[in-house]
Every structure is written in C-alpha cells, then in structure tokens.
C-alpha cells in the first residue's frame, strides 16, 4: 500500500506541470459542458413508478388523465363574477390556456367549454344546453343573468364557480409529451408560460389569477431555487473569511476554494455529459460538493502548513501531505460517495438523480482536492512571516487540545458515555414518533406564505373542491356500469369512504347516475337511487360522458374520487387503510377496488415508498461505512468508535425532525444518508492518526492528544465550514431547502462533536487496558 502511494506521489509530483495542464484542459471542457446545463423537472421523477399504486395509476392514466393537472381560478376583486370585464377575461384565459403547448386540449374545462352544460326538468322531460350559449354577449346584462341561472341549473357551483360567486375555474390536464417535439414536456417552460401568459397578462386591479397544480408548483420551486446562486455566493464569502482566519495566508485561502469550485464545475459538467439536467429538488448538491471540497482542502493546507512550520520546504510538505492524506481523505470521500450511492436503492427517480449527482460530485473531489490541491500548493512560497504567525498559536492551542483530550480520561469518558446513552434513549423514543410524508397544508416544498400556497388556500377555501383528492380505481368487466350489483357496490363503498374521517366528499359514476335517475323522474329527490332496471340504468349512465373522468370507454373502470380534507400522512394512512378494509366487503373476482390515482394517491405511494426505503437505506449506508472503516483500520474497536457516535447522531436527527414537525419525505429522506456519509469523515481523520499510535500500545489519552494536535483544528474547522455552508439554506424561499438546511447543519455540527467528544470516550472504553 505504502509503495503504491509513493509511486503515485513520484508520478504526480515529477510531472507537476503536466498534471496541472490536464486539470486545466478538463476544467475548460467540463466548464463548457456545465454552461449547457439545464434545470429540469418532471412529474414522474417524483413518484415511485414501481409501487403497486403507481402501477395502477399508470395502467389507467390514458383513460383518466391522472394526477398532472392545472387549476386556474380567475377571481373578480369586486366579489361578483357577473360582469362584462370578468367574462371577457375568463374567455381569454380559457383560450390562452387551450393554446399553451402541453395542455391536453380535449380536457380544458371552464364555463366556456362546450361540455359545460345544464339540464333542467320541464313538464314532459328535460331541457338543457350549454351554460354559456353560442350567442353570448357579455355586454348584455340579460345574457349575464341567463348565464347565472344556467350555472345554478348546471349544479357546478363549488366546482367551476366558487361558492361565493367571486371566482370561476379553468382546469386542464397536461400531456406527458410535448406534441410539437415528441420530447417529454418541459415543465419549467410550461410553468413560465402560465405565469407570463395567464397571470402576467390578465391579473390587474379588478381580476386576480390563481394557478395551482404540479407544473406550477415545480415552476415556483425552480424560481425559488434560483436564490441558490445568492446563497452560494454568501457561502463562498463566509468560507473564504474562515479559511483565511485558519490559514492566515491569502494563497492558502485561495487554493482550496479554487479546487472546490473546480470540483463543482466538473460535477455540473459531468451531469450534462451524462445527459442529466439539474432538478430544482437537488439543486443543493453543488453546495454540498463545494462544502465537502473545502473541508478536505482545509485538511490539506493544514497538513502542508504544519510541516512548513515544522521546517520542511513547501514542495516536501506538499508531497508529505499528499501521501499522508491520500488514504484517510480517499477513504472519507469514498465513504461519502458510497453513502450517497446507497440512495440508489430507493425507487424514486428524483432520489436516484440526487444519489448520482452527489456521488459524482464527491468522487470528483478526490481528484481536485487530494491531487490537484497538493500539486498546486507545491508551487507556492511560504515565507518566514507565515511561520512566525503560527509560532505562538501552537502553544495556545495546545492548552485547548489538552483540555479536549480529557475526554479520554476515565472519569470524563464515563460521564460522556452516560450522557450519550441518555441522549440516545430519549432521542430513540422521540424518533419513533417521526411522521412520514407532508405534515402541513399546501405544497410542502414551498413556504406557507408563498403565492402558490396562498392560491391553494384560496381555491380550497372558496370552492367545494380540493386539490387533495385520491381516486380508487374500480376495475370490473366491460359494460359493468349497466349492472345494478356493480354500481350498488361502488355506491355503498363510496358511502363507507365518505364516512371516514378526513374524507370531505366523494363522487363516482354511481353517485352521478343516482342524480341523473332523479333527473329522469322530474327531479324528484325520492328517485335519487340506482335503478334495478337495466334499461333505466343505461339511460342514466348514457348522460355521463367519458370526459367526466368517471368511466372509461367500455365502462370497465370507474374511479371513486375521494376529496380529502388535507394530505397529512395520517389522513392518507387512515383513508388508505379504510379503502383496504371496506373493499373486502365488496370485491369479487370481477370487481376490484384498486389504489390509487390522483395527487393524494401519488402521495400515498410516495409515503409508502419512503417509509419502506428508510430502514434499508440506513442499513446500507451504515453497512458501507462499517465495511470501509474495517478495511482501512483493520480493527473492530476503531470501527465501533467511529460508527457508534454516527448512529447516535442519526437517531438524534430523527428526533429533531419529530420535534420540528419535519416529515420524512422525498426531500428529507436523503438527508440522513448525506449526514452519515459526510459525518464519518471527522472520525476517520481523527482515528487514522490515533489507531496507529494505539496499535503501538500508546495510552488512549496520549494518542488522542497527538491526533488532536495533528488534525483537531482541521476537524473543528471542517465541521464549522460545512455547517455554515448549509445553514444559509435556512433563509431559502423553499420550505424543503430550509428543512434540509436545518437538518444538515445539525448533522454536521453534532457529528463533529461526536467525533471530538464521544469518539475518544468510546476509545477509552474499548482500549481500557491502555491507560496510564
């Protein structure tokens, strides 16, 4: 092993100029690639496509559109829609939405669509027509009056017109592929068009436009994600100041920052090369890469600086730093990479992308910060002044390190371990309470006061509909909607579900057929039943078009749409459990009640996938870390000393999530893997020095003191740098970035404390024979 490293060192440092030139070339190439990088978001990436529910959803998507829809509520600030200006605007919004590429034009619905009809009962039968007649003239008050009557007759108040008559709705379904290009629909471009062409064009003093739906949400997330550039600048500035305080040399500040930025450029460039875009959900990864790069760069300048102060030439010091850090640095970065790779086991596209993005980034750091950085450093000159600056500091910090080393003294170690056990037990109890899924109303990625969430609240408030709905797909034999038994089963199932807490209302072909049947009987509510007579049933159902989304062409599939009060995980679980319970009563070989479509169906699947992934993910990430530690230390005791604090911290992080009401979601699930992957670095750096000494039989406290003097300042500094880098996210306009920021800051700081405080105490216990 040592030979290989020496060979590497000779090969690299003899050809310093070639190495630098190669890096410059690669940086130019990948820099160009990085400039081509596009933000990229897709609906299907966010859902677990192989989950049973999503398989059902995909199977019937062509018939029922599915979950990717857009709701545009146009509101009149005067509180009443029946005026010329409003109807002209509504018509324009309808037409505009119709012509935006990516909209399924057959499924654009508003008062102005031909499918919006009313029927009324007259002596001797039905009369009816479009709610807005063909000769509608918005400037004629009588025409508006007529429309207002038709709206009532059509029974669309609460759905297409708000309960208080202050708003009207235009809804549309989105296509998965852009019809022009045949490529997957560019959701972000689509969202931008909604903002410009609908809100930008039509919102004014008298009209407000409220847009919700996945595409709009992800567009708003992407816009919020652009703040990241600002955070990135702030993080670089803070880090630069910190590194300067640490290194007291402009050059030594500049180089690790430069190498870390090179790593980010490479990572972004490689994404383009591999054909990926940067998803708004994983836009924070470049941050992490930068922060990790800096933390390893600091280890490098620390090593070089110490040796120069010790009297070596800069070149010698750089070579030595390279050889001494390649193994621990390499192992640490490798474990980061492996930690991220474990996220690949989770079958959700976006998490896999995050795993790839992050592991590529960290792998790149091995090249830029463990090879390029020492090579670049070998070119610089450190004068005597530099050495003088450190002379006094060493003494001062020695006192501090002596104090720290007390952690490995018997009494302190026992106290630390007791406190750790107590924290672990309390944390463990709290962590079992951790909730899965989104805990708050509105789009969880965004803050509650964001325009998108305000629009969501307005729409759910003023209309009887909810964006939180789930479809139970009833699968039967073709033409089974003419069967009284099947329809009655659907109706009874629906009634059971409506009675479940959290379900606001429900609609299905059966419930609509009952209304139509009453309609055929002069609107008499006493006839609001399913007819046993097959002809009568056919008559009732023939008035329900497939565009209603309540049946497919041959009515072999009929969804029961459940409108929910919210999409909190416990609500979803309760409803899903109720579906599973009640369907047993009605299912037969020819009649299945399948979960699930609709936005909440997707959430149910995602929650289940996330919950199912959590334990294996921790298992894999710890497995990988343990394996790497065993390989590098060849000691079970060393491995346990590193891993136990990590495990305690990951449990505490879960407890923190419970405490802060952060649910385990697609965006927070990776945090623990990231935290463990990066957190292990501290332990590895400290123990790599310590374990050699311990093997020689040195007392624990002494070995730890040596390790602290060698690596302690770099470890403390690394933890603080990483934490500062991610803590800026707390100010993000995106809720999930804030959550991730809080959790990662916590994990970085507490993992560092774990490595500095708990690790020596554990070592003291494991090597109890090696005392003074």
């Amino acid at each position: 092993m040592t030979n290989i490293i020496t060979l590497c060192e000779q090969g690299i440092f003899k050809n310093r100029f070639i190495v630098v030139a190669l890096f410059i070339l690669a940086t130019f190439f990948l820099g160009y690639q990085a400039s081509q990088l596009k933000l990229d978001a897709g609906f299907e990436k966010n859902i677990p496509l192989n989950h049973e529910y999503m398989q059902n959803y995909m199977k019937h998507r062509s018939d029922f559109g599915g979950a990717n829809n857009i709701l545009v509520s146009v509101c009149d600030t005067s509180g009443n829609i029946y005026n010329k200006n409003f109807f002209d605007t509504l018509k324009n919004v309808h037409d505009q939405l119709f012509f935006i590429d990516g909209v399924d034009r057959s499924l654009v619905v508003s008062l102005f669509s031909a499918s919006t009809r009313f029927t009324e009962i007259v002596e001797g039968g039905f009369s009816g027509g479009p709610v807005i007649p063909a000769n509608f003239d918005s400037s004629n008050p009588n025409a508006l009056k007529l429309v207002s009557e038709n709206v009532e007759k059509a029974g669309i108040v609460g759905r297409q017109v708000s309960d208080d008559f202050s708003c009207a709705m235009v809804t549309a379904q989105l296509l998965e592929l852009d019809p022009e290009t045949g490529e997957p629909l560019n959701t972000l471009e689509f969202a931008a068009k909604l903002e410009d062409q609908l809100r930008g064009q039509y919102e004014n003093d008298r009209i407000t436009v409220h847009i919700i739906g996945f595409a709009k949400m992800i567009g708003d997330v992407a816009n919020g994600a652009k703040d990241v550039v600002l955070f990135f600048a702030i993080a670089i500035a803070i880090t630069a100041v910190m590194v300067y305080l640490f290194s007291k040399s402009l050059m030594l500040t500049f180089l690790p920052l430069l190498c870390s930025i090179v790593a980010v450029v490479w990572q972004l460039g490689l994404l383009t090369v591999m054909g990926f875009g940067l998803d708004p959900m994983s836009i924070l990864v470049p941050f992490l890469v930068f922060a990790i790069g800096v933390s390893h760069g600091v280890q490098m300048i620390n090593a070089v600086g110490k040796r120069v102060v010790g009297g070596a030439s800069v070149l010698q010091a750089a070579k030595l730093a390279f050889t001494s850090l390649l193994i621990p640095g390499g192992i640490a970065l490798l474990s980061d990479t492996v930690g991220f790779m474990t996220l690949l086991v989770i079958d959700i596209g976006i998490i896999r992308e995050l795993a790839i993005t992050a592991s590529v980034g960290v792998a790149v750091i091995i090249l830029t910060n463990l090879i390029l950085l020492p090579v670049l450093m070998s070119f610089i000159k450190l004068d005597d002044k530099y050495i003088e600056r450190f002379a006094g500091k060493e003494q001062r910090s020695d006192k501090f390190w002596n104090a720290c080393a007390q952690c490995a003294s018997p009494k302190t170690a026992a106290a630390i371990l007791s406190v750790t056990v107590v924290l672990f037990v309390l944390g463990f109890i709290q962590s079992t309470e951790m909730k899965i899924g989104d805990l708050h109303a509105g789009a969880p990625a965004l803050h509650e006061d964001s325009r998108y969430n305000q629009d969501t609240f307005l729409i759910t408030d003023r209309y009887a509909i909810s964006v939180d709905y789930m479809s139970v797909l009833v699968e039967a034999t073709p033409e089974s909607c003419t069967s009284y038994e099947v329809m009655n089963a659907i109706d009874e199932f629906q009634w059971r579900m409506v009675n479940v807490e959290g379900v606001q209302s429900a609609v299905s072909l059966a419930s609509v057929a009952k209304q139509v049947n009453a309609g055929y009987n002069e609107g008499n509510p006493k006839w609001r039943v399913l007819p046993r007579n097959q002809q009568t049933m056919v008559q009732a159902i023939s008035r329900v078009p497939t565009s209603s989304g309540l049946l497919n062409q041959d009515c072999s599939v009929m969804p029961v749409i459940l409108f929910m009060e919210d999409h909190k995980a416990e609500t979803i679980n309760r409803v899903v459990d109720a579906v599973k319970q009640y369907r047993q009563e009605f299912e037969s070989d020819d009649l299945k009640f399948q979960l699930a479509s609709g936005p909440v169906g997707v959430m149910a699947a995602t929650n289940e996938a996330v919950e199912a992934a959590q334990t294996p993910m921790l298992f894999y990430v710890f497995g990988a870390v343990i394996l790497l530690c065993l390989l590098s230390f060849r000691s079970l005791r060393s491995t346990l000393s590193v891993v136990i604090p990590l495990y305690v911290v990951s449990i505490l992080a879960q407890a923190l999530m419970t405490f802060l009401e952060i649910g385990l979601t697609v965006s927070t699930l990776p945090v623990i893997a990231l935290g463990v992957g990066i957190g292990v670095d501290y332990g590895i750096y400290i123990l790599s020095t310590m374990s050699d000494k311990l093997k020689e039989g040195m007392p624990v406290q002494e070995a730890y003191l040596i390790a602290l003097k060698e690596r302690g300042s770099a470890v403390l500094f690394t933890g603080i740098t990483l934490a500062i880098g991610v803590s800026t996210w707390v100010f993000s306009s995106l809720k999930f970035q804030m959550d991730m920021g809080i959790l990662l800051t916590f994990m970085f700081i507490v993992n560092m404390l774990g490595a500095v405080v708990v690790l020596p105490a554990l070592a003291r216990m494991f090597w109890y024979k090696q005392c003074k």
Partner: protein
Amino acid sequence: MQWYMNTKKLIRYVAGITLLATQAQAATSWQAKLATESLLLDMSTFDNHLVVVGERGHVLLSEDGDTFEQLSVPTVATLTAVDTVGDDIWAVGHDTTIIHSADRGQTWQQQLFLPELEKPLLDVLFFDSQHGIAIGAYGIFYRTQDGGQNWTVEKHPTLLHPDDQAYLEDIRQEDEAFYQTELDSIMPHLNRVSLHDGMLYLAGEAGLLAKSEDMGQSWQRMEIDYMGSFFDIVFDGGRLLATGLRGHLFEYVEELQSWAELDTCSLASFNSIVPLDGDNALVVGNNGYVLSINGTVMSQERANISANENCVTGQQLVLSQTEDSQAIINATLFNDKVIAVTAAGIQVLTQD
C-alpha cells in the same frame, strides 16, 4: 399435496361463509357517522319524538331535534316516507319495502320487500294502528287492515285521466288480461296522500289531484288546468293547497269549484307544503327554495332571489333560498323549530 388441496377447499368454504354473512348483514342498515348528512326524504312526529327516514335504510330518531340516533333496521333500501300512530312507526321506500316498529323504533320487522317489481313506494298513511295505505310509482297501492301483517294490492283506475279511463274500458271489453297489463303501465306515479277531516287527498304524476271520502276505496279526480306533476296536497288553515313541478302552487277556490294558481316566482319544483302555527305555512323545494305563506320569512336565505326579476310573488308569499341550495324534501315544526330534511341531511330553518 392432499393437505394442500384440503386447505384450499377449506379456505373456499370459509370464504363462502363470510360471503353469506356479509349478504345477510347487507340487509341491515349500516351505521354511518354521517347518516344525519345523507339524503333524507321524510319525517314524522309522535309524542315528543321526531323520526326521519332516507337513503340506504337510514332511520333517525330524535327527542330534541338536535341529536339524532340512527336506528338499526332490516333494510338498505332508500326509504321515501314514514308515518307514525301511537308507538307504531311504518317506513316505506324503494324495492317496494315496508318496515315496521311497534316499540318506537327499538325493534323493526320487514313487512314487504318486492325488489323484482322495480317500483318504489312513495308515501304511507295510517288512519289508526290497524288501517293504512301505502302508495307509489306506476299507481301501486297497498292497503292493510291488520297493522301491516298483510298488505293487499288495490287498483284505482279512477285516478287516471278520463281519456285514459275511456281508452282502458274499450280494451277491457276485448281482453281482460291485456287490460291489466296496460293498466299497470299507464297508471301515474302516486306521490303523496294527506288526510283532513275524513277526506283523503292525493297528489300524483301528470296533473293528478284526487280526493276520497272513504279512506281511498274510491277516488274522484279533481280537475285542474295543469299537466305537470304534483308532489303534495294539504288542507291547511282553512284552505286546500297543492304544489309540484317547476314552482307551481295552486289553491282550491271553493266558490268557483276550481284551482287558482299562485305566483311563486320559482322554477324549482316544490316537494312539500309544511303547515306551521296559525295560517302560516312553508312550501319547500329543490335548490333550497323556501316559499313562505303569510309572512313567515325564513332566514338562511342567500337573497330574496326570484327566477325572473320581473316576477312578483302573489300576496303574502315570500320566496327565499337556503345558503347551500340543497333540495329540501320536507319539513316540520318540532320543539319550536322548523326542522327540514334535505338532500344533505337535517337542516334547521330559523324564522326571522
């Protein structure tokens, strides 16, 4: 292998039993938290109790008009009407269902259940604890003389329009069997009966209003110049009122021996006439419309909406609409409150 097969059989056997069990269970109404918010269609009061019936075999009982208890009854059919005499309750509905309780709703028996007829019963009226009638779609008419132990079918061709009666008589001369079939198919829906001072009144499909002096043994049609359906006919406050399709309301003028139409300004059908105290009454209907007669104005109205701005309601009539616009099927004065049954359950209409 043998064991495996047996297990499989056993599972099938057990599954069969469970299926039977659920079918048997299906006949009993399902206890629903939201029964009070379901489609409720009729109500009746007895001895400080209010009983309400509606869809899925929902029967609700209340002592105060605030809290309702859902009773367990042996049917899941939609119940359209209820009547009470003393401790007896009868409820009728779809699938030609009649259920009865002799103990104020504690226990129930099914007296009639004929789903193969595909005809719903729409109203029930008991004259005393033994004698009563149940009427419904396509002219079905049942009578009991023994508290519902036995229900016998009656046919009343006299309820038909005179032209139809003449046509049927012609057929009868030639073919008695064909006459019966034709009679069954031509008979109008019988929607409502009410009793006042020994006189039975009936409202039905296609302009049918009739009265009977002998508890429905024989009927005389009351001529009226309107061919739409009637959903209720009530003698109240010294006058006879009939109401029905598309907001039509008529008052019988004794002196002229004919019906006079009142302007309601509603195009929504009225389902029931609800006598209140004194001369006051309400007419309740679809889309949450409430017409007050003699000035009892109901609040909860969204506005004093009339279907046509140029329309002026008749004297002492005020039209209003409930906020949720749900169809109101019936209402009653109970515990000084006007309690209504609507498509969205129990609702209290408060007087201004």
